[in-house]
């Protein structure tokens, strides 16, 4: 009975979404307050039914109702209760429902926190969000119904894919989707502004905090995914340029460009059309990612079971949403460049370079991801360009970003003083050079890439610290750091931390596949690894071979590690690596195959600084959230106040 109610709730949600995307927009066009007033109740009603449907599916997993086909396919009796929650979004149908749930949460939040904004604009914003919701609900109901019955009920289900049975997976998809879907808000604001012809910069200020929060969550989602790939997939890497990773990375790159271009448009009025376009791009790439992942047009480790109807449906929806919005853009985007004039040496120019680099990088990733299809089309066959392509082009595009980023905060709007900026940054440059030389002297065999990592980290890190110190010295107490500025400092500092992780880990990691006899000791990366044997252990829904490996540095016992090889009840195998983490070094041990006579294959990695990669992501996350909390975004202000004094440090200090 309950699953049918769930399906019923989805249909009601669809009807309300249809109301939400038509009547308010119509009302805003005709100036009819009654129709405009429909928007918020429709949002609330739709959310209630979506939450109900999601709750019912979760309940089916918790009570193990194997008469629901989706539940039977993705869980079984021995699955512990805490993994029944992520099992809800462990496959296509449920993750789509999660997508819709998160879209509804965003929409409710927008509806609730925007009471001070013009009603007509909000009617359009909520209408656009309703249209997106409408499309996804229709998609779920027509092609991917999670409540489909399998009667008679199965006595037991198959298993949740064991690589998904991990605490990281409880958080990874919801965070990623929160980011992905969150760009729909900036998108809705942009479309609403285009529809209403209100192309002043007010909409940008209202859209900014939402964009920052979405970007922060996407950063967290990607960081969690990378961390999960590192310690669950057991390949020891942290990024694979897999099509699905790329699908989440492209919106991130464009989103990064967007939050910077929004800042310019809001404060200076420049780049208006460009900000509109980026708002459309960021969400379009989220939709495109959804298409790539779920249509089966590309293959990936994240494969979702694909059904040709699904691919066609999403493609049509993608065509309507993105094609339609780009047409609206072509028709209504501001014809003349607005905003205050700026010189070549100015913060605007630097942010333009930032935008250019990030958009080019996104285009590069898109090209590489679609390459197999392009190959088909040109008749040269389906070929993948992998890390050899991305790993070469991407760093080249990011090099100017790393070199120029410290200048950003020191350059003034409109007209920068090169000499002043240079004097402020000279200590950072000297520090970066000194640190690199010191590193080269202490580690004479350090590879060039690791030294470049040291240089880049100190250049970016010291550059942003120099800026923070200058604000501390020159601005009066209490007005030193606005949340927006603090967010920028945190995120840029995060980039410095991230660069240290990427470049030093990439250059100095040691990876070995070794055969160990019982009680044999071998040396890897200056550490002694002693293998003392393998024992059988039993978990809640698996049996495992558990190895024991003692790690010594000289005579000192560093740690004892217990990597496992699990056999799940669904006959699926999963290797669980044992990791001794540290700020400066990870020791990573995974159990391979038995080699006979109690000997085992063991994979050992020693990865210096690898955690800095994810630590950098966390800094960026907190940066995004902090910036979104800026008071300026909350209060309703006249347009004249848009140029906040605190945002222009040089003026304050003058």
């Amino acid at each position: 009975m309950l699953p049918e109610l769930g399906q019923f709730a989805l249909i009601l949600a669809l009807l309300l979404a249809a109301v939400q995307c038509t009547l308010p927009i119509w009302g805003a066009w005709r100036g009819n307050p009654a129709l405009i007033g429909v928007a918020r109740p429709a949002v609330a009603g739709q959310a209630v039914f979506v939450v109900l449907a999601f709750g019912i599916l979760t309940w089916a997993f918790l009570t193990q109702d194997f008469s629901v086909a989706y539940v039977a396919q993705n869980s079984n009796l021995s699955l512990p209760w805490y993994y029944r929650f992520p099992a809800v979004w462990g496959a296509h149908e449920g993750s789509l429902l999660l997508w819709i749930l998160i879209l509804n949460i965003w929409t409710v939040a927008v509806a609730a926190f925007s009471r001070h904004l013009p009603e007509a604009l909000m009617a359009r914003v909520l209408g656009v969000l309703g249209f997106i919701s409408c499309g996804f609900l229709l998609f779920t109901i027509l092609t991917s119904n999670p409540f489909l019955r399998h009667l008679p009920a199965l006595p037991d289900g198959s298993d949740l894919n064991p690589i998904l049975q991990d605490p990281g997976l409880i958080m990874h998809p919801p965070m990623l989707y929160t980011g992905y879907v969150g760009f729909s808000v900036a998108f809705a604001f942009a479309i609403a502004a285009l529809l209403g012809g209100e192309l002043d910069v007010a909409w940008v200020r209202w859209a900014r905090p939402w964009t920052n929060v979405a970007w922060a969550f996407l950063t967290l989602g990607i960081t969690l995914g990378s961390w999960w790939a590192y310690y669950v997939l057991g390949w020891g890497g942290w990024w694979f340029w897999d099509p699905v990773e790329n699908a989440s990375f492209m919106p991130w790159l464009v989103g990064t460009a967007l939050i910077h271009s929004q800042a310019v448009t809001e404060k200076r009025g420049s780049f208006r059309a460009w900000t509109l376009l980026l708002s459309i791009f960021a969400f379009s790439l989220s939709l495109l990612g959804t298409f790539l992942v779920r249509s089966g047009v590309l293959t990936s480790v994240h494969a979702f079971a694909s059904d040709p109807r699904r691919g066609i449906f999403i493609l049509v929806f993608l065509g309507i949403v993105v094609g339609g919005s780009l047409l609206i853009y072509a028709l209504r985007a501001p014809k003349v460049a607005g905003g205050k004039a700026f010189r070549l040496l100015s913060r605007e120019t630097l942010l333009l370079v930032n935008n250019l680099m990030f958009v080019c990088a996104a285009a590069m990733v898109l090209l590489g991801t679609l390459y197999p299809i392009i190959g088909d089309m040109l008749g040269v066959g389906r070929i993948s360009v992998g890390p050899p392509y991305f790993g070469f082009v991407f760093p080249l595009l990011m090099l100017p970003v790393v070199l120029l980023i410290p200048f950003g905060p020191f350059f003034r709007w409109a007209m920068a003083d090169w000499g002043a900026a240079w004097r402020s940054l000279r200590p950072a440059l000297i520090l970066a050079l000194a640190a690199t030389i010191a590193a080269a002297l202490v580690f004479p065999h350090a590879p060039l890439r690791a030294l470049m990592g040291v240089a880049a980290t100190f250049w970016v890190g010291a550059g942003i610290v120099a800026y923070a110190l200058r604000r501390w010295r020159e601005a009066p107490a209490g007005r030193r750091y606005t949340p927006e500025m603090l967010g920028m400092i945190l995120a840029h500092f995060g980039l410095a931390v991230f660069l240290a992780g990427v470049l030093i880990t990439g250059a100095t990691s040691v990876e070995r596949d070794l055969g160990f006899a019982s009680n044999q000791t071998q040396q890897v990366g200056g550490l002694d690894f002693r293998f003392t044997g393998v024992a059988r252990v039993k978990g809640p829904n698996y049996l495992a071979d558990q190895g024991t490996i003692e790690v010594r540095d000289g005579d000192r016992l560093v740690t004892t590690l217990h990597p496992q090889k699990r056999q799940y009840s669904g006959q699926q195998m999963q290797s669980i690596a044992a990791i001794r983490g540290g700020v400066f070094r990870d020791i990573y041990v995974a159990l391979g195959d038995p080699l006979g006579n109690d000997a085992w294959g063991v994979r050992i990695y020693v990865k210096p600084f690898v955690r800095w990669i994810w630590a950098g992501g966390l800094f960026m996350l907190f940066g995004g959230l902090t910036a979104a909390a800026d008071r300026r975004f909350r209060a309703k202000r006249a347009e004249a106040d848009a140029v906040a004094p605190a945002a222009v440090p040089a003026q304050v200090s003058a």
Partner: protein
Amino acid sequence: MSLGRLLPFIGFALIVALLVFGLRWNRTHDMNWVPSPLINKPAPEFTLPLLYDSTKSVSRKELLGKPWLLNVFGSWCVTCQDEHPVLMTYAKKFGVQLIGLNWKDDPDAAKRWLAQFGNPYDTILVDTDGKAGIDFGVYGAPETFLVDGQGVVRYKHIGNLTPESIARELDPAIARLRTERP
């Protein structure tokens, strides 16, 4: 409306056309055979180390006498993962030895990849810097070359091998080699 404002829409329309093509192609087509300048020419010279014993190497000369298949793969290559089960099934049925060319890859990553998915190859050569790949005119992975006993390239397949393409093209090409032999 200026043309410049329409450019994003036009770009997007091109991408959609590409994706429509991709979807249709997936359902209707199979890998198509592409003529290569190497066909019926001697395979390029090479001497490459073995994946599982880097102290040993194999050169083109040592392979003369019997036909062999060269399959270009990399652990980073997603399409290769698609092709892999097909190779696992067909490797022993080809009737000629299957040599893997581990292209632009980290040898340890390749070993892990093979440990995880299985090793269909009789011999695996390592081409980390991709130089042999350039000599063979490799576009991307996977690609497969059929070389006869005289060291002449007889057939080339770009993209993943599928049961259909093997039945339609590769198996007949191998069979032709057999009939030529006295």
